[in-house]
């Protein structure tokens, strides 16, 4: 069972499944991520949309089967990590249990030993132990970067932490979009959001703070087409400044600016009772005749009259034609179209702030323009776990790439052949659990350094064989 769980085959199947789900999530608009786009897509593909909804592909990344595949992938990665940890432990400590003896337990190999250990020490190797396989033959093992054996384990542990964070975050997450116009206050709660997404473990744990929007300012203030905005908020009566790179964290919830636009304040007086004042956010920003304008429609409260409104934020006349010279609210002008319940047009005209119109038996006054702001309020309990996972992954990468474990075996034996009657033969071999392509370069470098040492009679660097002889050296 364990070998199945840790198998690469299972990993490949799970990754193929994940990929298929990710591609489905990319192609099909996600109801929870892009509600407007999803509504549009639903309207244009009603047949397919029903099937997609039944399969849960309209919220792929929070669907139970996506989480199930992620969960299985977690188990698979965990099994691999355990397996790698066992391997790392074995590799890191194998020299201790390999029957090697401490240095000095046998006769010293003399000069060849000295130069071999000195070259290896120079390259940060530590001699772990000695072996004496035959009479007059010495083999010693030198190692470096033993901590690097744990690189892969730590890297995988980081991935596990990230997966856990994703799942935990999905279960307990909360995300809502709340619309506010300047001067408006609301008490945070389930019913105050225009879009809401709650994980199954969130359990309606709303903080219930009071949020107010004081003002919205364009960024930069002189620019005709604003690139962004900053806003002044009050939370439970305390003032806060909200910027686009500076979200607020309040009572465990992160508050971000999402979108903003124009809102109009109107006063309607149907001639009976007190006049009614209300503010309407114009959610659509469109370009018409080269002007960027805000647009929206509403049924005037207490009547059956629909008002279609277009706001020119900074209205001016050019060649007798109305246009908006910027998106900044300076000289707002409202184009009003009133329609009856049958759709018949009752009125069309332009009004400046403070002006009113009389039509269809009511007086409608445009009292002023302001901004609306969509606040995105989030809580993701898995986020810290994910960022901790990133840190662990980075640590793993550092160990994987900068601490490459290597083992070098040096064999010293009496020389043979006519050229080396009185000398020694030194052979250097090595192993590395990864980046073995770099090991050859390392071995060549060690052999080259050894070959440059005084006393070497002949060297075959490619074969890793060095011959020391009495003639060129200072020992016999």
């Amino acid at each position, binding site marked *: 069972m364990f070998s199945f769980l840790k198998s*690469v085959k299972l990993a490949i199947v799970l990754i193929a499944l994940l990929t298929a789900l990710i591609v489905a999530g990319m192609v099909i608009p996600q109801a929870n991520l892009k509600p407007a786009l999803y509504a549009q897509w639903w309207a244009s593909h009603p047949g397919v949309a029903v099937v997609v909804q039944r399969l849960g592909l309209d919220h792929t990344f929070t669907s139970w089967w996506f989480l199930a595949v992620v969960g299985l992938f977690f188990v698979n990665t965990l099994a691999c990590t355990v397996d790698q940890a066992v391997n790392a432990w074995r590799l890191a400590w194998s020299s201790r249990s390999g029957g090697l003896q401490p240095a000095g337990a046998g006769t010293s190999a003399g000069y060849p030993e000295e130069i071999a250990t000195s070259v290896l020490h120079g390259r940060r190797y530590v001699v772990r132990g000695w072996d004496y396989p035959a009479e007059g033959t010495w083999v010693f093992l030198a190692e470096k970067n033993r901590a690097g054996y744990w690189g892969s384990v730590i890297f995988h542990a980081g991935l596990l932490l990230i997966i856990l964070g994703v799942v935990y975050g999905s279960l307990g997450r909360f995300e809502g979009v709340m619309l506010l116009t300047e001067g408006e206050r609301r008490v945070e709660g389930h019913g105050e959001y225009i879009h809401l997404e709650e994980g199954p473990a969130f359990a309606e744990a709303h903080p219930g703070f009071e949020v107010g929007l004081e003002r919205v300012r364009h960024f930069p203030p002189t620019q005709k087409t604003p*690139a962004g905005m900053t806003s002044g908020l009050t939370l439970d009566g305390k003032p806060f400044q909200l*910027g686009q*790179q500076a979200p607020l964290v309040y009572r465990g919830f992160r508050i971000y600016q999402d979108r903003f636009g124009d809102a109009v304040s109107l006063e309607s007086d149907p001639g009976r009772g007190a006049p009614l004042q209300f503010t309407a956010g114009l959610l659509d920003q469109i370009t018409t005749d080269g002007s960027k304008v805000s647009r929206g429609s509403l049924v005037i409260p207490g009547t059956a009259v629909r008002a279609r409104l277009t706001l020119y934020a900074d209205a001016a006349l050019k060649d007798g034609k109305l246009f908006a010279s910027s998106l900044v609210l300076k000289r707002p002008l409202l184009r009003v179209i009133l329609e009856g319940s049958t759709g018949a047009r009752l009125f069309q005209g332009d009004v400046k702030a403070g002006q009113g119109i009389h039509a269809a038996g009511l007086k409608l006054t445009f009292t002023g323009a302001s901004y609306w702001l969509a606040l995105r309020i989030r809580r993701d309990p898995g*986020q810290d776990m994910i*960022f901790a996972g990133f840190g662990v992954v980075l640590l793993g990468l550092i160990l994987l790439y900068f601490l490459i474990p290597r083992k070098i075996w040096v064999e010293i034996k009496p020389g043979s052949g006519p050229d080396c009657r009185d000398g020694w033969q030194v052979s250097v071999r090595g192993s590395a659990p990864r980046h*073995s392509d770099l090991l050859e370069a390392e071995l060549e470098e060690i052999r080259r350094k050894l070959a440059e040492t005084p006393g070497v009679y002949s060297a075959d660097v490619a074969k890793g064989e060095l011959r020391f002889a009495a003639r060129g050296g200072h020992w016999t």
Partner: protein
Amino acid sequence: MLILSERFLQLASVSLWASLAVYVARFKAGTPRLAYFGGLLAKAGWVALSVSLLVRSLVQGHLPITTFFESLTTLVWVALTIYLYLDWKWRWPVLSAFFLLLASGGLAYALFLPQEVRALPPVLQVVPPVIRALPPKLQSGWLLLHVTFNFFSYGAFTLSFLIGIQYLWQDYQLKHKKFTIWYDRLPSLDRLDFLNARMINWGFPLLTLGIITGSIWARYAWGTYWDWNAKESWSLFTWLIFAFALYFRDIRKWRGRKAVLFTVIGFLAVLFNYFGINFLFRHPHFFIRGS
């Protein structure tokens, strides 16, 4: 000033095409001396491209990474920088011809993009230089790190792809005993395999860092570390391909054709992430469209 950037870009393009022509001539004639001139022209191209990007950065007050045109020219610069490093280290004229074809093609494509896409975005044109600034969401050190890591990883993967193609071609010649002029000119299979592995070993940690820094930046800019948009999803997929490529090389000791094929597939995923996703899907990686 912007016209200066444009002229240097054209100069860079001409230098790279000339360098390519010299390397092709060298390849046909087998004259090593020509490689020196080819290298010189490639370096001249790199200098001209650096000046072009520097001028553009100074004019608009931030790095040229906000439009497709800018990101493509910056990506060519990054890949050219990695290539020049490899050329300095390994002296490899055949890789030069392959790479320069891709780099010159990339720059030519960028130059043939419509003028309004290549010009500064209108938002920046109407603003005096002193207050020109990136949209607030793009004013972040994390973004700079995100783009830098990703571009360098893309550069490494591009070179791994080119080396991989050379490997597959050499392998094909050997297996089918069809020895063309390429057989003598291309390095040995062992050498190609080694360099292919090196490039993946460079690219993978850089891609990992790119994704992590992007995620941290997204948390500040959009309030979420992961949005499951098309770009992010495909990046994850690409990361998984290269993670497996490394796994099979290091743990399963895969070598040769199988291992190289993985990197070729990985590069195709990178290519789709860079071009395909941008054109096929709406996602928040397009900030200023430039028109």
